[in-house]
């Protein structure tokens, strides 16, 4: 009797359970958030063409829109050698990596490493670090070549040198036994134009895509620091360290947000540094040409005015880079994407790739108070020896990198025609990018390797929906 009772009870319970199951929605819908397709809040664009990274955010004033247009023009058009009749755009070089911002950030998108020795303007450059720091705490530049190797120069001036990249394939296996291969780059400098280098550390960098920069500026410092755990007090194996860097405009230390090691505090510093470092365009912030005492021809070259980009035009470019909209999600509610999102949370990627912030106030009011989904904490993390460049940048050590935002990552193939990822573009696709994670990312990477092939595909599909 008792048995029968138990059985009938079980029967009833299972009936209830079934009834429940029928009425319950797909458990994956638990991962669907209201409005998550608006990755940049109101500053989101749903264009999915190759212009996806180049759209202005909505809600700009007439003056801000005009600034966007002028900035767009200065970002995309080539600078020319001085003296020239195009007085607003002369002063290229003497040394440079690219003739325009878009030379590296093509279509406001992402660069890649050269495919062959001597390929120019692909959006790749080499930083040169000596031992110690400058008075401001910045990395010590090479005494002959400066802090960055420029592989191009204006007519009749010898370029500084050329980066040679060789790759070695490293084969490993997923938990299910299927093999994968990663390419480990090694770097050397050839065709040095001005004698031996004094720098001992080479730090390769590719140009990231530009979307959403203003929103990252608008995240409050408090919200960023809330995720910092430099000494891993909570023992989860993830530190999160804030970089504090020299602000060349304000002339004081400030929280670092931009660049591969969070070495720049805001887009004004970032853009002005790119003008001088990558294109040889002087500004009020960096008034001196990139010529060392050894580089005499460079010192004697004509300039395109002092400065070569006047402050108001520099601010137009800054405004442009602040107001590029973030691509919205594609298929954010598709079951494989939601399953990928579930796995992204489950294996701990979100410990660094923070899904969501609400922006604070920004000078451009359209950027203020937006719920955004950048998938970054803007903090530094040790990513292991395999990814390390050994270069110190303020508080960032040779193993540390700033978590890059993941928004827009799935459109890079559309915009830029490649799927090369990480700081030096070594990863040939998103799977390889994940597999390069080490250090604080090691345990998530290890869990990724144990996923089934279908689960791995779902995770990648989620990333491609960002």
């Amino acid at each position, binding site marked *: 009797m008792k048995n029968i009772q138990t059985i009938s009870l079980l029967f009833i319970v299972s009936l209830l359970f079934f009834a429940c199951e029928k009425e319950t929605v797909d458990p994956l819908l638990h991962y669907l958030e209201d409005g998550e397709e608006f990755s940049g809040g109101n500053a989101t664009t749903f*264009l999915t*063409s190759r*212009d996806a990274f*180049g*759209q202005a955010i909505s809600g700009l004033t*007439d003056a801000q*829109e*005009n600034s966007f*247009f*002028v900035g*767009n*023009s200065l970002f*995309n*058009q080539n600078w020319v050698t001085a003296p020239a*009749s*195009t*007085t*607003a*755009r002369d002063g290229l070089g003497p040394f440079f990596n690219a003739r325009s911002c*878009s030379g590296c950030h093509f*279509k406001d998108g992402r660069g890649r490493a050269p495919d062959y020795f001597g390929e120019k303007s692909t959006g790749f450059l080499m930083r040169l670090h000596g031992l110690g720091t400058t008075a401001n705490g910045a990395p010590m530049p090479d005494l002959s070549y400066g802090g960055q190797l420029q592989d191009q120069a204006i007519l009749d001036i010898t370029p500084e040198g050329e980066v040679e990249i060789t790759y070695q394939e490293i084969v490993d296996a997923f938990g299910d036994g299927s093999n994968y291969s990663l390419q480990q780059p090694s770097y050397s400098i050839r065709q040095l134009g001005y004698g031996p280098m004094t720098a001992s550390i080479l730090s390769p960098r590719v140009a990231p895509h530009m979307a959403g920069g203003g929103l990252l500026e608008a995240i409050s410092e408090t919200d960023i620091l809330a995720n910092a755990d430099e000494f891993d007090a909570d023992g989860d194996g993830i530190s999160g360290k804030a970089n504090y860097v020299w602000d060349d405009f304000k002339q004081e230390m400030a929280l670092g947000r931009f660049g591969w090691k969070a070495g720049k505090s805001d887009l004004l510093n970032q853009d002005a540094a790119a003008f001088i470092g990558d294109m040889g365009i002087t500004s009020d912030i960096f008034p001196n040409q990139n010529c060392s005492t050894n580089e005499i021809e460079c010192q004697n070259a004509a300039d395109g005015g002092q400065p070569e980009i006047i402050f108001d*035009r520099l601010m*137009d470019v800054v405004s442009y880079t602040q107001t590029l909209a973030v691509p919205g999600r594609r298929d954010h509610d598709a079951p494989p994407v939601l399953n990928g999102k579930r796995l992204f949370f489950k294996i701990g990627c979100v410990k660094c790739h923070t899904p969501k912030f609400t922006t604070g106030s920004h000078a451009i009011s359209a950027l203020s108070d937006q719920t955004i989904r950048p998938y970054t904490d803007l903090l530094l993390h040790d990513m292991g020896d395999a990814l390390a460049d050994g270069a110190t940048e303020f508080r960032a050590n040779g193993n540390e990198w700033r978590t890059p935002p993941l928004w827009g990552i799935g459109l890079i193939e559309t915009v830029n025609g490649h799927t090369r990822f990480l700081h030096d573009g070594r990863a040939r696709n998103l799977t390889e990018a994940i597999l390069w994670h080490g250090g604080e990312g090691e345990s998530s990477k290890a869990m990724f390797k144990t996923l089934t092939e279908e689960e791995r595909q779902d995770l990648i599909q989620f990333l491609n929906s960002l």
Partner: protein
Amino acid sequence: MIVAYTNKDQEDEHSCFSDNTHRDIILNAQGINNIYNGRYSNITGTGLADLVALADESTNTAIVNLLTQIKTDNALIHVPFDHAISNDSYRPQVLTAANNLKELGDKLVEAASALGFTVSAELPD
């Protein structure tokens, strides 16, 4: 236009060598006007206006009025354009004309979406 206006640099003008920029601005706008209203010289036919009017009457009216305004305002741009962008007393007319055209671009995007198309107002590089 806004770039030439902001940079005050003749090299950023539409036709910096021929000094024909004022005509370029007027005739480019006329070209849009022709296609939109279905009118070329004394020839008339179906234009985009007829189509947009069916989908969104108020957007169509706004565009038609704006095209008329553009014709009036473009004619006020000082000649030669070099002076129009460099002389402070002539600059406001250039800014007005440029803002009109920007608004036209926005309105045409709205008209397209009323017709079920997505177009980008992004400038070509």
